[in-house]
């Protein structure tokens, strides 16, 4: 038996009885709504909290030293990959998608928009070039923001010179992004943008399944690189993308099934 009953008259209940008296003595004033908790401050520690806070930030900074180029590549590529999912999902409301596809698209936008922010922060925190996303209709443009510019934020980022890809790229890397697994071609995007109603649903689901499968593949690649995904933030993010996108793939297949 897990739950062991205790005799009811323990010290806590004695305390509560006294507390009851406290309440009843209040009664002569006939105020029933006031039930003040016994005034007491939480116990405080003797350790110096300012020192602990400095230690906290120092540890947070040093926890960001533990990454390899495969991590940087994954984050950089996944930003563009997610950005295309935004382009696709934003079409749903205006292209008369069904209610469930619109709900799915809204959830994808919310999730992947936030994850883009997380990935950009991850790169910035590590002094790496950060892909800035610009979307103009169906056109995706990625500009690399120079990693150096952001070293102002975190002085501890200074010794990352051995990592490749450091420094201003500043070029439009769009052409490269279509090579990633699951990325749609510009023709496919235009095809999707022209579809309406059920036809849109069908195309959207088929394309997004492919797109998500690409992301899952990218996670697998990350995990098969030596020394990659040791950083807790990238491990959690990549595992999360893996689990959530597999879940969405299943849901989308069922939705597609129902249409057909």
């Amino acid at each position: 038996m897990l739950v062991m009953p205790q005799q009811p008259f323990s010290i806590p209940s004695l305390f509560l009885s006294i507390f009851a008296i406290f309440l009843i003595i209040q009664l002569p004033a006939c105020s029933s709504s006031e039930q003040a908790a016994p005034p007491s401050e939480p116990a405080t520690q003797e350790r110096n909290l300012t020192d602990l806070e400095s230690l906290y930030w120092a540890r947070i900074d040093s926890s960001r030293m533990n990454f390899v180029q495969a991590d940087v590549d994954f984050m950089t590529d996944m930003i563009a990959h997610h950005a295309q999912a935004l382009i696709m999902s934003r079409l749903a409301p205006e292209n008369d998608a069904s209610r469930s596809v619109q709900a799915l698209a809204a959830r994808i936008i919310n999730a992947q928009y936030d994850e883009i922010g997380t990935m950009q922060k991850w790169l910035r925190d590590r002094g790496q070039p950060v892909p800035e996303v610009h979307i103009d209709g169906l056109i995706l443009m990625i500009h690399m923001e120079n990693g150096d510019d952001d070293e102002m934020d975190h002085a501890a980022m200074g010794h990352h010179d051995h990592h490749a890809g450091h420094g201003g790229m500043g070029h439009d890397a769009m052409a490269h992004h279509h090579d990633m697994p699951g990325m749609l071609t510009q023709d496919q995007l235009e095809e999707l943008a022209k579809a309406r109603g059920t036809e849109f649903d069908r195309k959207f689901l088929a394309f997004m399944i492919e797109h998500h499968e690409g992301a899952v593949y990218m996670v697998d690649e990350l995990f098969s690189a030596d020394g990659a995904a040791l950083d807790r933030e990238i491990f959690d993010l990549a595992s999360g993308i893996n689990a959530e996108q597999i879940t969405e793939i299943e849901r989308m297949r069922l939705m597609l099934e129902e249409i057909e």
Partner: protein
Amino acid sequence: MKQFVPAILLGMAALIGIYSCTSTEQLQQTSTSTLLPITEIEQPYPDPRVGLQAGVFDAEETIWNLRMISTTPPPDDFIGSWGTDLAFKDNYAIQGNYNGFIIWDISNPESPDVVVDFLCPASQSDVSVYGDLLFVSGEGLGGRLDCGTEGVRETVSADRLRGIRIFDISDIHEPEYIANVQTCRGSHTHSVLVDPNDDENIYVYVSGSAPVRPEEELAGCSDAFPDEDPDSALFRIEVIKVPLANPELAEIVSSPRIFDDLEAPPTHGLAPEEQAVVDRAIEAGRFVANYGETQRIVNDGMVRNFLSQIVEERGGEGEPTEADSTLLRERLDDMYMEFMEERLAARGRGLDLGPNQCHDITLYPEIGLAGGACEGYGLLIDISDPVNPVRIDAVADSNFAYWHSATFNNDGTTVLFTDEWGGGTQPKCRETDPYEWGANAIYTIVDGKMEFQSYFKMPAPQTSTENCVAHNGSMIPIPGRDIMVQSWYQGGINVFDFTDPANPIEIAYHDRGPLSDDRLEIGGSWSIYWYNGLLINSEIVRGLDIFELVPSDFITENEIAASNTVRMDYFNPQGQPMFTWPASYALARAYADQLDRNRELDMQSIQMLRTGIDRAERTNGNEQTRILTELAAEMESRATGSANSNKVLKIAETLRELAEG
């Protein structure tokens, strides 16, 4: 003797009260209800959780209907690492951490004491206890068999631990690392199952959500689909058997595929606009099939196929007749169902297997059930045979939830799933985030089937630098009510009542400002659980917080006193215990308060009951027995006049037990 002194004081206090209040006021208090129904109690407005100042150990805080007893930062080696889940044994709270685990002595909750800080890095280090054993989950790639802090850099390595670590804690001050069980996906979480019919072994269910490790590292690990490799590590959980006499012989004994053959997830029914389309189709005389909880318009091609099938079955040929058409209308639901089943069976690989893994499984052995939070599905699992769990129901959610954990109410009639949208690292409680996303979904269990009731989400908008989503929690044993305490990461913690599963209500909370105003750093509450009268909070960054409930319009002091009569020797939140309440005056009074609050018994009877309980408690011996027995009989006779005769009878039963001493 202990109750004697307060009893006299109570009597005196009551006299003073009567003396100084006017008689009409006193009369009102005896004839009308003193407690507001919980739906009528006002909540703090504006919500004080909005706009709290940022800080790591000095963030601004707000608290409502709780008292913070203490807050203690983690030991130095664990500052900057992430605190995770909790398990409890005796007066100890064991807190997992990405760096290992911490054992806190909480016998003085004003000042919890670190007795062990065990460095042994692995994410997430979810912890469980049983007897002298401590189990710790390892999932991340850097976990080492030797607990080293240097990590493992190679993709394939003999040093890596992904699975379950087992420690001997017979001397809790000196945990001894005695065994490992390696698994293919590592252990994101795990649940310890104590089989009531087996006192020699316990079972550990392992859930993993990370990718499968290479076969070169752990033989037999395959991430092929099961139709290519029947031993695939996908689409299954692992069951580890631990012989209590020889825990170092723990091993995987089965890998049940509890997900196989899941059908299309049911939805909450059709949206109004979709229902309107169906209604118009019915009016127009089209074929509409009832499928699960929804209605489907059957398209013309399918109707033609069904009709030819009917013609064929009667041995006929050519065009279907009016009679065939009538027959189809009768058989449509069955034919449609059969068609869908065939189609589901013919689906592409993986699809008929349903989810690929579970995030967490909550075992509730007393009712023989487990709640599996498995990707897009919430599963109800029969665990009466621990080695061979069987799925009995599955639900999916039209809001695309990613199910993370499950909690049952005490009598097992309601199950609550959490949607850990964004994995806990994203800010999903902003004003712009829908209430239904990253929330709890509450289902009732009727004849082994789950029926959706409502969503519940911590309602105070949080900033974009606060990771926030539904996370771990546990039931609080307020007798007769379903009340839960829950973590929301940087959304703080809250307590809510879901006794009415369709209308959950928040009744207490604590929140801190973000760790930082300008950058999202992971933090907040990972888990909070009730343990022997305390609410113990594992704060990811800030260590261990201890709270207690304070009486409020939502919960009376009697109800809190009754909850505090429940005592546990140990507690693993993923192995849910059934609470039982010993007979006590507090219990009888708590039930009386509930009858009062819910207007379920006339006030005259409630007043008589309260006075009788007070009188009985002040006396002893035969006189006490007589009062209690008479009061019990009186309550039994009045039960039929109550809107909740069950509760009145429970009071009578409690009084009789007290009378028997």
